[in-house]
């Protein structure tokens, strides 16, 4: 009697690696513009929405603005969803999760910030970036990955009017996996109860940024996909790298602004030697000039080293170096 070969099941660590690589690639695409809304912000849709939700607030139509929580409505694809679908940096990751059996989906978080109320007649444009894939984690529903993306809506003057963070759990439904130890139902992405499995953890990147009272805001911004620049809370002067005192007015009161994420190469070097832990040479280190008026040092990625030139346009991108550390880097972009 001969043993039949065991059916080949993909090694969980390699599935995890593949998903992470794809998620990193999607995150590296940065913000991708979708098609503008089919219709400008308009009174009939607002009236219909208020009627359906039982919202009697007269302020919106009196003042010619939309209810802020309608923000996503303006750029829903509706029944046109099968026509020319926008390319979104989220789709490929979700498709790969489905392909690996993580077919269940449940939304866990929706966070919206409204910079201002949008007005009748404005046509909004959404922009989506894939932010993170966290997992695999044991949840009450089954083993799964938390996928997070961010949408920013822009007005006609190209200014952000609202932002949304959206997180879903893609899980492997129980039946296809057998019993697994259930976590409490209250579990979400941030919960301590969600213990990552041992498999698939990435090697910690050996170099860490120095995070201190002066720089913490910058790294917190990076975690949220924001490039934050320190600003003097008194005279308004921007400064980078961050420091305790304003070089213009010597005030110690500080705040920050969020940069647009555009930049140009001010200067750069191609690093060949010596070796740097955790990095493959050659790589590019650039001084990037931001339109906001400060310069910032960072790597240029997604570009052959000999294609980098002074003055070239860049777009910020956020790269996960391990399970915790994300660094802002720069990729070629249109100006």
């Amino acid at each position, binding site marked *: 009697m001969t043993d039949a070969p065991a059916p080949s099941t993909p090694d969980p660590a390699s599935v995890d690696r593949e998903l992470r690589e794809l998620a990193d690639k999607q995150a590296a695409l940065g913000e991708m513009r979708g098609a503008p809304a089919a219709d400008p912000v308009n009174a009939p849709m607002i009236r219909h929405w208020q009627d359906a939700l039982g919202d009697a607030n007269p302020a919106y139509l009196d003042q010619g603005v939309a209810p802020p929580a309608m923000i996503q409505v303006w750029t829903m694809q509706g029944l046109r969803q099968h026509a020319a679908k926008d390319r979104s940096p989220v789709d490929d990751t979700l498709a790969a999760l489905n392909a690996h059996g993580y077919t269940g989906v449940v*939304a866990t978080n*929706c966070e919206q910030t409204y910079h201002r109320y949008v007005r009748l007649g404005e046509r909004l444009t959404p922009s989506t970036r894939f932010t993170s894939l966290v997992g695999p984690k044991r949840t009450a529903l089954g083993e799964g990955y938390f996928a997070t993306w961010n949408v920013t809506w822009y007005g006609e003057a190209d200014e952000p009017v609202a932002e949304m963070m959206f997180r879903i759990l893609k899980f492997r439904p129980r039946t296809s996996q057998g019993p697994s130890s259930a976590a409490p139902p209250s579990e979400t992405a941030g919960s301590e109860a969600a213990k990552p499995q041992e498999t698939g953890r990435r090697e910690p990147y050996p170099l860490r940024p120095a995070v201190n009272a002066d720089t913490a805001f910058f790294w917190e911004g990076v975690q949220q996909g924001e490039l934050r620049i320190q600003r003097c809370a008194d005279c308004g002067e921007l400064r980078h790298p961050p420091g305790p005192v304003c070089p213009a007015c010597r005030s110690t009161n500080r705040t920050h602004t969020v940069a647009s994420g555009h930049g140009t190469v001010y200067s750069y070097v191609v690093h060949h030697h010596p070796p740097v832990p955790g990095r493959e040479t050659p790589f590019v280190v650039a001084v990037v000039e931001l339109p906001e008026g400060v310069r910032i040092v960072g790597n240029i990625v997604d570009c052959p080293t000999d294609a980098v030139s002074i003055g070239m346009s860049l777009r910020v991108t956020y790269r996960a170096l391990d399970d915790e550390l994300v660094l802002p880097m720069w990729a070629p972009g249109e100006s």
Partner: protein
Amino acid sequence: MRTLTEDQVELGSALPELSIDLTPTVVVSTALATMDFTPVHHDVERARAQGSKDIFLNILTTMGLVERYVTDWAGPAAIIRRINVKLGVPAYAGDRLSFTGTIVSRAAGELTVEVRGKVSLGDHATGTITLTLPTAP
């Protein structure tokens, strides 16, 4: 319509409860008003085929109802800055969605209200909504 001013609210005070009867009409009309044509929000058979008890409220509506709950209380002069919602159990047609809320912080002119929307299965949505109120005239 009544509108609250900053001086009229106290940290820790509770908002009046709002309870909404989730008829199929509510679930379907809100899904369509939010341009969400996913079958699970209007087609009972499709919803059941994928393991749901019935059609259920879509997320855009949940966000809208959280906003409505707070503006019903605060009045038309309130400006909503931020809504952060953690989503829980589905809100099925035939159930009731009851909102409760408490003022949990008051800083730099911004008020934060903690909101909880419960259905018979448990918490459908919990979170915070941040707003500003006009100052007293």
